[in-house]
């Protein structure tokens, strides 16, 4: 009788342990995946922001154009780091 009760306890314990391990493993994997994805997203966002900053810089220079002074030299500023 005691042996049978122990058997049930062993089965239940094993199942609980297995469940805990599975959950833990997936949690760790999920965190790792999220980190990698986030770093990729951040790289993309940085690239977009950089491009946007270049566009804004170009626009700001263009806005300097004085309709009376015709100062194109100040308005048309090339950004050599952009590879066309």
């Amino acid at each position, binding site marked *: 009788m005691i042996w049978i009760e122990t058997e049930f306890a062993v*089965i*239940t314990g094993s*199942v609980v342990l297995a469940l805990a391990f599975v959950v833990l493993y*997936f949690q760790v994997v999920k965190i790792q995946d999220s980190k990698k994805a986030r770093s990729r997203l951040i790289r993309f966002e940085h*690239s*977009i922001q950089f491009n946007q900053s270049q566009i804004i810089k170009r626009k700001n220079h263009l806005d300097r154009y004085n309709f009376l002074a*015709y100062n194109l030299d100040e308005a*048309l500023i*090339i*950004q050599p780091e952009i590879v066309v």
Partner: protein
Amino acid sequence: MKHCYCWAFAFLLSVYALSAQEIQKIDSINAILVQNSSLKTDSLLVIFENNLKAAQKIDYKKGIGEAYKNLATIYGYEANGEKRVAYNLKAIRIFEENDLKPQAANLYGEMGYGMKRDNMEKAQYYMNKGLKMAEEGNYKEVLDRTYNNYGVLKEMQGQLDSALYFYKKGLAIVEERKYTEGLPYSYSNLAGAYGQMGNFDLARDYFYKAKVIREEINDRKGIAENFTQIGEVYLIEGKPAEAVPFFEKSLLIARKEDYRFLMQYTYQQLSETFKQMQQTDSALYYFEKYAVFKDSINSLETTKQIAALEVEFETEQKENEILRQRTQLAEKDLEVRRKNAYIFGSLGLSIILGLLGYLIYSRQKQKNRQLQKEKELQVALAKIETQNRLEEQRLRISRDLHDNIGSQLTFIIISLDNLNYMLKDTGQEVKERIAAISAFTSVTINELRDTVWAMNKEVITVKDLQMRISNFIDQAQSSRRDVDFQFKYKEKHLQKLEFSAVGGINVYRIIQEAVNNALKYAEAQTICVKMEISDSKYKIVILDDGRGFDINGGKSGHGISNMQKRANDIDADFKISTSVNKGTTISIQSKA
């Protein structure tokens, strides 16, 4: 080492051979038919007791059981009911424990048969038990005897037809088995039944038949029984005088064989016979002889002890049954618990697999979401990179255009100015012409600059345009303090209106041209620029209080045609209203 193995093998072989020999010896002794034996019961008792010990020594269960059975038979012949029952029970116990069913069935039958005179109910019970066991296993060697004995019980209960039925059944099996020793029993039983049915001749025929076979096989006790039975037939037939010799012959043999039970019975029959013959002395004499035997055989104490032994045996049987049932219950309980464990284990595994499946699905979903986001960002990045590159490319082209063509045009202007200076002594017309070309080139270069700028600027907001116009007005004011410049701006739902770069420039140039004209030609004191923005429409009015001019008379200046052209380019209505000394009003308005 090899020698040791050989010796050990030889030793075991010899032990085995000796055991087999011993078993054979025990079986041979047990096979002795007590009723056929010429030995006295005392001698037989000793032989079977020694045989029992030998079987117990080597733990030969069948041998032990058979020995007990034979001892019970002997005690039965000695009319020792207590020991007969005790040994029978021991034998049955051994047979049942060791699954020797034919032996157990046979012994149940014999035990029941032995009780027929004391307790018919019990006798029937045991015989039925033995019969059932023998029929289930189809033990023919047991059935022939048991059917015969069962028939005797029926006969004792007066059920002669049933008795005959069982006797014939038994006889059939005996004949089938060619079991010579069994034939006298069957014939005797049939004879007894026919005798009771009144068929005395047939009865006597069967008894003689039985006696003949018994004489052949030297069954002394059986022969004695037959003599008693033949005498009984004569007695029932009403021929007591003819019965007496047969009873006496039976007594002679029974005494020699120490067959006490038969002696008791035969004395009783003799007493009855002489009673019928009205010889009371002899009747009494034999009755007294019978009484002496009866008391010793059927004492109350013996009956009690037999009953106690039976109770003990039955109790033991029931306890064994209870233990067996408990074991079965425990086994079933264990089976149920194992099944439960299996079910729980399977359930647990299903839960784990289910959770695993859900987690994998969830992870995949998350990955898909992340990939989706990444893809969106990738697309946005690609778009913005493309836009950035395109704009940069355009700007570089514009820059090249400005640098090359712009500088070339500038060179042309400078060259023309130089030429004008070099040709200072030529006629005025040439100078004017050169000046016009120079001015045109200047306008061209400005137009180019505006165009180059507009190529790169997509839209101009209303606010931006307003600011540029305001700046222009301020600059004009600062350069001409004697003129009152006004700029009025009205807006409604500003957000919806945006000018294209070309459109914005054109609007600005129109205002610039109109103001310049008002300053140059109109000699105005007040110049007002009004700008009204509403939804996606605009209206710009430039009015001055200058000299005005006759719009119909004379040719319109390039300034007005330029303004007209610019208004057409931006799909706006251009109106000019002026008259001499009444100022000029120029309006541009987006079309509906």
